[in-house]
């Protein structure tokens, strides 16, 4: 493994071919994903395009907030409820 590292580390990053090194910040990518979904969905759904970008902003915010709430709920479930059930089992 260490034999190949120098060659790969010195190679220039080529966009669209090599991946981005965003392992620590992967969760930030959920925001552009929500924006992309909103852009396409609202382009089909909105009748009056003069309100389009406002609707896109609202839907993007809704998706991001929903994901945050879902993540918080799963965190509480795993960290507290499952631990509590395990402690009181049997």
């Amino acid at each position, binding site marked *: 493994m260490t034999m190949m590292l120098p060659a*790969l580390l010195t190679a220039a990053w080529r966009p669209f071919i090599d991946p981005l090194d965003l392992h620590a910040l992967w969760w930030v990518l959920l925001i552009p994903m929500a924006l992309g979904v909103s852009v396409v969905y609202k382009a089909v759904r909105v*009748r009056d395009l003069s309100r389009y970008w406002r609707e896109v902003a609202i839907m993007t915010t809704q998706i991001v907030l929903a994901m945050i709430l879902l993540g918080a709920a799963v965190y509480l479930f795993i960290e507290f409820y499952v631990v509590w059930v395990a402690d009181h089992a049997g």
Partner: protein
Amino acid sequence: MSSAPYPAAPAAPAPAPEETFQPVALVLAALFPGAGHIYLGEVKRGVLIAAGVLGLFVGGLLIGGIGVVDRRDNFIWFMGQALVGPVAFGVDAAHQSMFKVVDPSGYRRPARPNEGRGDKGQVVYGGTPPYIRSLGRVHELGTLFATIAGMMNLICIIDASFHAPRTRRRSGGGAR
């Protein structure tokens, strides 16, 4: 008995435009995102669809590299990505033919560390892989971006195929 006339009834709302099947729009929308709507005269809507779908797809490639579009090793996800249209098939063809290596058994696969790619695609031991294959969350998100692009384009294809001219609503309610 009073002879006063009843007040005039309010005018009935105009009936909603009827959906019609548009086979040409279906084909165009399947060939290129947004083309079906542009054919139907909704140019701005078509441009927004193209920007959104291609933005998600290209965003997936930018995040995870070309390895996120892989018909051979990731077929289930590719089924969703294929809904973007010929663009997805072109990216996959480039991935298979220009970046993967053919091992001695004839199997086409990503190059492993310390493997390079020869002129005819064969494995060259001791070389540098032609691309870095993404792993973990970055690979998952890149794949997800490209697949969501295809799924969203499916909605647009259906919308263009069964098209009803959109009219502005005077008051709220329903789709905005």
